[in-house]
Every structure is written in structure tokens, then in C-alpha cells.
């Protein structure tokens, strides 16, 4: 894709797609997209990726995490990945990828 090309991406088709980082390492699935209103525009700020993002979407984050912990679930990270808009490459909307590594993302 050329650097100046604009793309229309359908949010509903982006949902559930698997995200990998710049090295091809699996990050998770896109479950939610955050946006801020700026005047008349609605600008995307972050993509929520990972299974716990579903809890955020259903507004049951604390209940969901609590229940999972009660049931003995362990996880390296109990929070979804919050990927800034400029770290997500959507040039191929069916195969979104980060333009950094997962570690670089975690160190932010």
C-alpha cells in the first residue's frame, strides 16, 4: 500500500481479528475500539486487544476478573492490551499488526 493511500475500514469486520506484532508474535484479538470526540470528529485513540477486553466491552470488568480469579484462573496480565492508534497498522484490515513489538508496548 502506498504511504498516501487512504482506506475505509469497517469496525464490525475488524472485531475479533487477530493482531500480531512486528515480529509476527501473537498479541490477541481486537475486542473494542476507544474514541474521543474532538469537535465534530470522533477520533480513534486505542484498540483494546485480548480476552479481558471483552469484560470491558460488557462493563463487567471487575466482576469478570473477580469470577475468573475465584475459579482459579491465572494470567500474566489481567488487563487487556491498550494499543494506541498510531501503533496499529491497518493497511491489511483482515490481518492487523502492530508496528512495534509486544514488549515495547508493555514498556510504555
Amino acid at each position, binding site marked *: 500500500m502506498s504511504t498516501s493511500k487512504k482506506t475505509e475500514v469497517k469496525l464490525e469486520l475488524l472485531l475479533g481479528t487477530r493482531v500480531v506484532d512486528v515480529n509476527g508474535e501473537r498479541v490477541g484479538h481486537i475486542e473494542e475500539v476507544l474514541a474521543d470526540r474532538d469537535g465534530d470528529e470522533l477520533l480513534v485513540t486505542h484498540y483494546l486487544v485480548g480476552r479481558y477486553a471483552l469484560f470491558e466491552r*460488557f*462493563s*463487567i470488568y471487575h*466482576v469478570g476478573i473477580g469470577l475468573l480469579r475465584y475459579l482459579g484462573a491465572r494470567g500474566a496480565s489481567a488487563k487487556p492490551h491498550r494499543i494506541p492508534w498510531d501503533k496499529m497498522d491497518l493497511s491489511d484490515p483482515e490481518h492487523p499488526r502492530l508496528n512495534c513489538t509486544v514488549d515495547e508496548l508493555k514498556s510504555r
Partner: protein
Amino acid sequence: MKKFLQVALGVVTGIGGFLEVGSIATAAEAGASFKYALLWAIALGTICLIFLVEMTGRLAAISKHAVADAVRERLGFPFAVIPRTAEIIVNIMVIGAEIGGVCLALKFMTGIEVRVWAIPVTLLIWLTIWAGTLDFIEDATSILGLASIAFVVAAVKMHPDVHAALRGLVPSSPHQDAAHYWYIAVGILGATISPYMFHFYGSGAIEDKWGEDSLGANRITAVLGMSFGAVMSMAVLVCAALVLAPRSIEVARYEQAALVLIPALGRWGLPLFAATLGVCCFGAAMEVSLATAYMTAQTLGWNWGENKKPDKEARFAMTYVIMLLLGGTLLLTGIDPLKLTMLAMALTAVILPLIVLPFVLLLNDQTYVHEHTNGPIGNTVVIVTLVLASIVAIVTIPLEIMGGG
């Protein structure tokens, strides 16, 4: 005064609207085959129903959105399409069975075969929905449905063994014919916790413009209305236990169920049975058709409303017209209404988990119900209902094969 009338009508709706072809068939079969042993299934189903109906009304009153609306909005279309499609398929069968119930009632009165009545009855149901308002439909079916009190009168007149009946309220394992026993239990749960009731009740609440001040009336309606309705259903079971069981008559056809009022009410027995069956099924056919239209319109975002002129909500009106056509056509194929009923009840039991699951999420979502979220008792009951519905869904098809008609 207005609140009192609202509550009174809600209670009457519960009484008059509870009995329909499925609940009559399953209760009669339960009583005929196992005497009082399955009373617990009606009680259990009713407790679950009371909580779910109250939640439906609360959701509608606070959010001004019905269950189908909220399920689509919160859980998304790819999820919502599954229970909604399943409900449409089941509802076609239920409408066919309810129309069949009305036709059977007319057959009992006139001797004229069911298939002859199918078209005129379907047309009359359509015309009542088409030209009537929601209030008219609710009022008429509720008041006429009070004829079902005949079952209570008959049961009392026959002096049932009260202790044996009370023991039937405690779940027990059958001594024999376990597959058939659990098959009927599952059918009773499917007939009692009918998904169409949530769509009809919640949408009616929105059409009646319920608000936060309606929550008390909603609670009373749910508890008293459904409880009194369950008493009607239990009365059918008791009558069957007293009349059919001692004669080893199993309910393989509705004509056998029609015998239950004769010993107690004499020559009035059959006409009252026919009147009750006819009125209750007529009301239920309207409710299920409208419920399907409500649910479809709300899932797809159309305008909807029984109180609006059909030309203003053409897609909503088209939906219930199509549902009635399909249900009526099913009956014209000659299918036995009783078999259709039992199959519809079993399939309802299969899809119940998907119907109940959203209640856990929606009634704890402050976006919808603000500070009126479920308490610990409400949440416990919904989760227990969900677990129960899941177990029932898994065992229904094997039971249908092993213990069904």
C-alpha cells in the same frame, strides 16, 4: 386508583394469560401419568418465571428498551441472531399449536374437524391484532381467560388428597418410566418459562409508557399474576390426576384431556373445557404472533407498536401477518396439535439458556437499569435458572427420543 387498576389488570392477565395449549397439555399429561408427582415442575418453572418477568418489566420501565433491543445492543448481532432465529422457528410451531387449540375447542363444541376451522380462526386472530389495540387484546383475553377458574372449582369439588399434592411440590424421582417423567418435566418447564412472554410483557410495558413509578406494580404483577396463573396450571394437573390417572388414561390426544372437568362439573364440564381452551389459545396465539413481531422489529431496529396503525409500521405488521400465515399453514398439513405442542415445548427448553443468559448481563448494567440493578437474590435466581436451563437443554433431545410421544 390508576395504579390499582394497573396492578389488578396485570394480575388478571397472569391468571387469564397463563394457560395456553402447552401448559394445558403438559399439566394434563403430567397428572394423568404421574398424579401429583410433577407439581414441583410447575412451581419451579413459575418461580423462575416470576423473577424473569419482573426483570423484563424493570428493564422496560427504566431503559425504555425491551429485552430483544437490549440483547442486540449489548451482545451484538452475531449473538442475537441465534436465539431470535430459534425463537421464530419455535414460535411458528407454537402459533400453529395455539390455533390448533382454538380449532379443537370449536371441534368439541360443534363436531366439525380442526382443519375446517384453521383458516377462519387464523383470520379472526389476525383481524383482532390488526384492528385492536394492545389494551383491548390484553383486557379481552385476560377477562375471558378467567374461565380457567373452572379447573380450580373442579379440582376443589373432587376433594384431592392435599397431603399427597403438597408432597408433589417436592422434587422426586419416579418409581418407573423415568424417561417419560423427565420428558414431561422438561415440557412443563418449556411451557412455563416461555420466551415469548418476556417479549410481550416488556414491549407492552413500553407501549403503556411504564416508568420508575411502575416498578412496584411490576413486582406485584409478576408475583401475583404468575402465581395465580400457576395455580390454574396446577389445577389442570390435579384434575387430570383425579380423573385420568385412576382410569389409566394417558393424554395422547386432546380429546382425552377434555374429560377432566366432566366428573366435577357434569354437563358443563366439556363446554367449559372447550371455552377455556378456546379463549386461552386465542389469546396466546395473538401474544406469540405479536411477541415475534416485537422481537424481530426490536432486533432489527424497525418502528413497532401494536397501538400504532399498521400502515405506520408496515414491517412490524408484516411480521405478525407472516407468522400467523405460517402457523395456520402448519395446521392445515393435518399435524396433530398435541404432538406439535410437545415438540414446541421441547425445542423451547433447548433454547432457554440463550434466552436466560442475557438477563445476567442486562439487569446488572447500570446503563440500562441505573441504580435498579439486580440484588443478590435476583442474581442467584437468574444464575440458578441459567444452570437449570442448560441442563434441561442438554437432556431434552435424548428425552424426546426416549420418553416422548
